[in-house]
């Protein structure tokens, strides 16, 4: 009879997650006693939780904490990602209140669910055991299924939730089967253990079971980061989900998917680098090209940004293919800047939308610059950053991703990436053409900038510009973070 040794508990290794989930549970209790019109208080309380969690994250930089028998490792890599996740959820909470009041789905569960989803993302980034990564992924996904279908009287939101649920659960099965096969081939679920086992038994690198396991895990993760050809859910879910949640989904969970993807492939499967780089090369090219080409044909701005987010996952995959220090640090930097620019853009989409969002088409932005010049300017900054035009964060991020690819000898991949980025200018500029060069058809009288929105847009612009003008400091942090 095998006995199970109780592993040493190191709470410091899960402190940021613990804070968030405890605050989330307390908020669920408070929610019961709060009348509908006061649900915004839950948002402020959750911001406090996020601030405390951020404090623990910042505080722990440089001192890696391992816990739970090596299944959680809170190192610089996960710290960097935690900052992305916390930023993303804080900005989402700031823009959510006005939206849920307008759309009459002001249920207090929104805020705890965002916190739980963030907890899941953090476990994905800090998990060093396939089990922890799977649990983090599911905590994230289950919260997101609910969030996508949050506006429960809205058919579009129902449909988004159900689609996301069916396809998400389907893809999780592939991920799990891949994990099972990897476990079968190596006899452990610890990422470090897998790497060690493969290094010691080099015959394994020809083992078809391990290869299939790796492929299946790649499928599961590609679904999460919405890489083509596993992206079919993205446009529908992004369009149907409540707009703040779309903003959240496009930045946070994508980053979490990349965190787990990077850790599993770089740490556990470096022996298969030749195989997975050629696989990811194809995925990156497909994802970028497909995302950009389809985005050109979109009229609905949420859908357009959904396809553009597919394309952005493709750019980040370029850094993954490079798999060197510059490329991987570029991914981290890019995901951070993408959080700022995308949440900023979505904040403005929420502001411009009317109840039920009948006016989400690009043409509905006609003449925004005449009525609201500051908002149009802010939107332009975000769009320039999404295009990758200096001096914004998007440019620096893409620059490092592509230079990483060139450094590893993937010249063609970098060229395809740059061409794609050039093609993307068309559909981003189209929004700006409508904002600046068309006469206003509406008076935008319903548009009201609340303090929360003001703060969000200012933070987002500051992030985009600071990361774009002075990227050295953050890039240095990213380079320290990727030494995993």
């Amino acid at each position, binding site marked *: 009879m*095998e006995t199970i040794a109780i592993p040493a508990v190191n709470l410091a290794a899960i402190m940021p997650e613990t804070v968030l989930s405890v605050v989330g549970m307390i908020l669920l209790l408070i929610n019961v006693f709060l009348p509908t019109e006061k649900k915004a208080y839950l948002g402020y309380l959750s911001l406090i939780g996020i601030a405390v969690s951020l404090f623990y994250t910042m505080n722990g930089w440089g001192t890696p904490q391992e816990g739970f028998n090596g299944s959680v490792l809170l190192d610089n890599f996960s710290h960097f990602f935690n900052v992305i996740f916390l930023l993303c959820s804080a900005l989402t909470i700031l823009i959510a209140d006005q939206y849920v009041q307008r759309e009459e789905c002001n249920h207090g569960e929104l805020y705890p669910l965002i916190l739980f989803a963030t907890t899941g993302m953090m476990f994905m980034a800090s998990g060093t055991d396939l089990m922890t990564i799977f*649990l983090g992924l599911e905590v994230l996904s289950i919260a997101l299924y609910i969030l996508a279908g949050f506006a429960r009287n809205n058919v579009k939101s129902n449909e988004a939730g159900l689609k996301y649920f*069916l396809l998400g659960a389907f893809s999780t099965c592939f991920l799990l*089967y891949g994990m099972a096969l990897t476990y079968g081939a190596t*006899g452990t679920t610890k990422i470090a253990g897998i790497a060690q086992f493969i290094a010691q038994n080099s015959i394994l690198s020809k083992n078809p079971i391990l290869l299939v396991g790796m492929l299946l895990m790649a499928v599961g993760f590609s679904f999460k980061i919405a890489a083509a050809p596993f992206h079919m859910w993205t446009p529908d879910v992004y369009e149907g989900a409540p707009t703040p949640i779309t903003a959240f989904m496009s930045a946070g969970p994508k980053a979490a998917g990349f965190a787990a993807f990077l850790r599993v492939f770089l740490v556990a499967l470096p022996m298969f680098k030749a195989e997975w780089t050629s696989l990811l090369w194809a995925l990156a090219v497909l994802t970028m090209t497909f995302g950009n080409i389809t985005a050109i*044909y979109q009229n609905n701005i949420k859908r357009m940004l959904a396809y553009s987010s597919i394309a952005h996952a493709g750019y980040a995959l370029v850094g993954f293919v490079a798999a060197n220090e510059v490329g991987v640090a570029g991914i981290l930097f890019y995901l951070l800047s993408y959080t700022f620019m995308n949440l900023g853009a979505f904040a403005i989409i929420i502001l411009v939308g009317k109840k039920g969002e009948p006016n989400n088409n690009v043409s509905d932005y006609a003449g925004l610059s005449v009525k609201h010049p500051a908002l149009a300017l802010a939107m332009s900054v975000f769009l320039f950053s999404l295009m990758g035009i200096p001096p914004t964060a998007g440019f620096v991020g893409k620059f490092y991703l592509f230079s990483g690819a060139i450094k590893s000898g993937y010249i063609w991949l970098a060229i395809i990436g740059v061409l794609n980025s050039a093609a993307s200018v068309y559909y981003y500029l189209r929004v700006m053409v409508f904002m600046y060069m068309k006469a206003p058809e509406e008076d935008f009288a319903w548009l009201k900038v609340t303090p929360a929105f003001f703060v969000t847009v200012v933070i987002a612009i500051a992030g985009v510009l600071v990361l774009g003008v002075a990227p050295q400091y953050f890039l240095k942090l990213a380079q320290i973070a990727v030494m995993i």
Partner: protein
Amino acid sequence: MLTHHSYLILSAILFSLGALGVLIRRNAIIIFMCIEMMLNSVNLAFVSLSKYLGNIDGQIFVFFIMTVAAAEAAVGLALMIAFYNNRESVEVEDLNVMKW
């Protein structure tokens, strides 16, 4: 003679059947049942591998998968009920409000 190979083959068959079901069936609840079957085939693989390797990790994994599957079922059925309230159907053909 049943070896661990037989279990792994059975698990692969169940997994493929489940995946096939997800792709060809048209009712969301049946699709969900197929997904559950895929999850259980993974459980079978984990348990038989755990027995074969003499290592307990795989069996612990199974507990987590079962827990997660239960949580997923709760959320998934709730989403289907919400959809049914608005569309009076859970056929995937009716998931057609949004099109590109």
